[in-house]
């Protein structure tokens, strides 16, 4: 018997089952000192909402967000100036928190990156702990997770762990899509949208003494591709904030695509002063395979994104796992792609950039299966080149 087999059997073992009435007895023993919800005791200092007020560090954080989210955002004087001016203090106050904890539901798909949107998909729980650069961790720290993946940066390196694949990847620097989860970035994105011609369909008081804004924005053209990322959809975004602090307290997003579909909503927004460093750690079990990028032979080095995509798909047709791995697929992914039944490469389109992804997407069409059962598949291969070899490699989208 191999260790792997033994571990699998151990994990599959069932625990002794408690009597059915035990939970009820335990609940009856909860002391009366515990109240209901928010009426209970106050949170401890480490959970306390940060006080309003920008510090030098938080201004630095805000600048970092602006730089990464709003290249080329519009200036004052445009049609959305009023809305933009209204959002300014919200962005400033929201961005003044050294760190934030977000839990949100988003309609996406397993196996896709954090920024992927699928209105017909299943809601997934996303969680993010983000400490901006200049706060407690000088380089910035973050940990984001959803069901099939967790990615954490401790300020020095990033660890991505994929539990279902039993694989993990370590890379230098902070490779985390923090903008997707940073409330100040959401506000700034809306401000940019307002300045670019987005339409406010509600602005004013929300329920319970809150302030509320709903903004409608058009999607960017996708040239025949299937929409897959938020900026590509016509959409409405609702933000809610506390007028007393100007800090964001909620966000919901809908896409307008054969109706109005909720695709994201926040469940928790917490502003933190001093997050525990352990929150940013990614625990990787000992039997997980650490994946590293293989060296490429001359024939596969120095290729552009479109050519990498073509070679990748041709390797899928040939079930050539070796080439798939050299082009960036992990052993687990290479095995899946090789077994996917790709029978022909129909087309490879022009690379494009969208959302917060730092790489490029390359649209493709392939045929799966043969004969009467053949089916066409259209999708976008994600490629990035921020690896030590500085070459374009696969990063998802199959």
């Amino acid at each position, binding site marked *: 018997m191999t260790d792997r087999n033994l571990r699998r059997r151990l994990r599959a073992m069932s625990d002794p089952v408690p009597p059915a009435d035990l939970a009820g007895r335990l609940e009856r023993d909860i002391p009366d000192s515990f109240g209901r919800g928010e009426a209970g005791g106050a949170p401890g200092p480490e959970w306390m909402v940060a006080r309003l007020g920008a510090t030098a560090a938080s201004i630095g954080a805000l600048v970092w967000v602006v730089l990464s989210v709003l290249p080329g955002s519009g200036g004052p004087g445009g049609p959305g100036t009023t809305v933009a001016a209204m959002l300014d203090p919200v962005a400033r106050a929201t961005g003044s928190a050294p760190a934030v*904890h977000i839990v949100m539901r988003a309609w996406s798909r397993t196996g896709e990156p954090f920024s992927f949107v699928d209105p017909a998909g299943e809601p997934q729980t996303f969680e993010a702990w983000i400490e901006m650069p200049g706060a407690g961790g000088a380089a910035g720290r973050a940990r984001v997770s959803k069901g099939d993946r967790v990615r954490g940066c401790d300020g020095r390196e990033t660890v991505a762990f994929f539990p279902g694949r039993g694989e993990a990847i370590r890379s230098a620097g902070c490779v985390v899509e923090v903008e997707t989860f940073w409330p100040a970035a959401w506000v700034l994105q809306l401000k940019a949208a307002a300045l670019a011609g987005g339409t406010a369909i509600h602005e004013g008081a929300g329920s319970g003494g809150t302030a509320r804004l709903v903004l409608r924005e058009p999607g960017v053209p996708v040239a025949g591709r299937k929409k897959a990322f938020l900026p590509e959809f016509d959409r409405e975004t609702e933000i809610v904030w506390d007028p007393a602090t100007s800090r964001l307290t909620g966000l919901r997003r809908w896409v307008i695509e054969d109706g109005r579909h909720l695709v994201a909503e926040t469940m928790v927004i*917490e502003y933190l002063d001093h997050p525990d460093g352990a929150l940013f750690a990614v625990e990787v079990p000992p039997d997980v395979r650490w994946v590293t990028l293989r060296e490429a032979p001359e024939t596969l080095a120095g290729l552009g994104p479109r050519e990498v995509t073509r070679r990748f798909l041709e390797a899928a047709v040939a079930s050539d796992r070796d080439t798939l791995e050299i082009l960036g697929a992990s052993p687990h992914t290479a095995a899946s792609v090789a077994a996917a039944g790709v029978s022909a490469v129909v087309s490879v389109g022009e690379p494009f950039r969208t959302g917060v992804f730092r790489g490029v997407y390359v649209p493709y069409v392939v045929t799966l299966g043969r004969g009467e059962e053949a089916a066409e598949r259209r999708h976008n291969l994600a490629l990035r080149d921020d690896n030590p070899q500085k070459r374009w490699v696969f990063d998802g989208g199959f």
Partner: protein
Amino acid sequence: MGPSDLILVWRLRRHDRDACQDLILRHHAAVYGWLRHLGADGPLAEDLTQETYARAWTRIDSLRQARSLRSWLLTIARNEYLQRARLKRPLEVGIEAAAAAAAADPPADDLLARTERDANLRRAVSRLDGVLREAVILHYFQELSLREVGAVLGVPPGTVKSRINRALTTLRDLLNKEEAHDRSEPETAIAGDV
């Protein structure tokens, strides 16, 4: 710790009664199972599960950004179990004694073991040395990380890792012997063993 546990910690520290109910529903089976694995019989495991939660309610304020709610509860449960074992001599259910007891008289819940292979594995685990058995149960049955197992047992993660490696070696030997023995036994004997 998953997203939901993080929110639960936050709610617990606000003394939210609904969060207490969530803590019970989410983890009481693990606490009960852990106590049974330690060697407690059914009634004692129920009793100690109640004491574990009673202790937890008094310590909520010391619960900060716990690495894992489950490991926090299992640590309390283990302490309660060891304390009871020390105080109640007639039980004599120390960690070391529990292995022999479990091997000789498997808990009734073992009927849940769906296959003969499961039963063999459970018996082999019960025969492990106490410290090895605890590490295996926490890591594989309770699905705690090495760091969390270390927190429960009060040892560094490296020690947990070496204990698990030793346990796996021992388990493999035990299972190989047992399964070789089973193959040489008549079918009725195997069926009676399940």
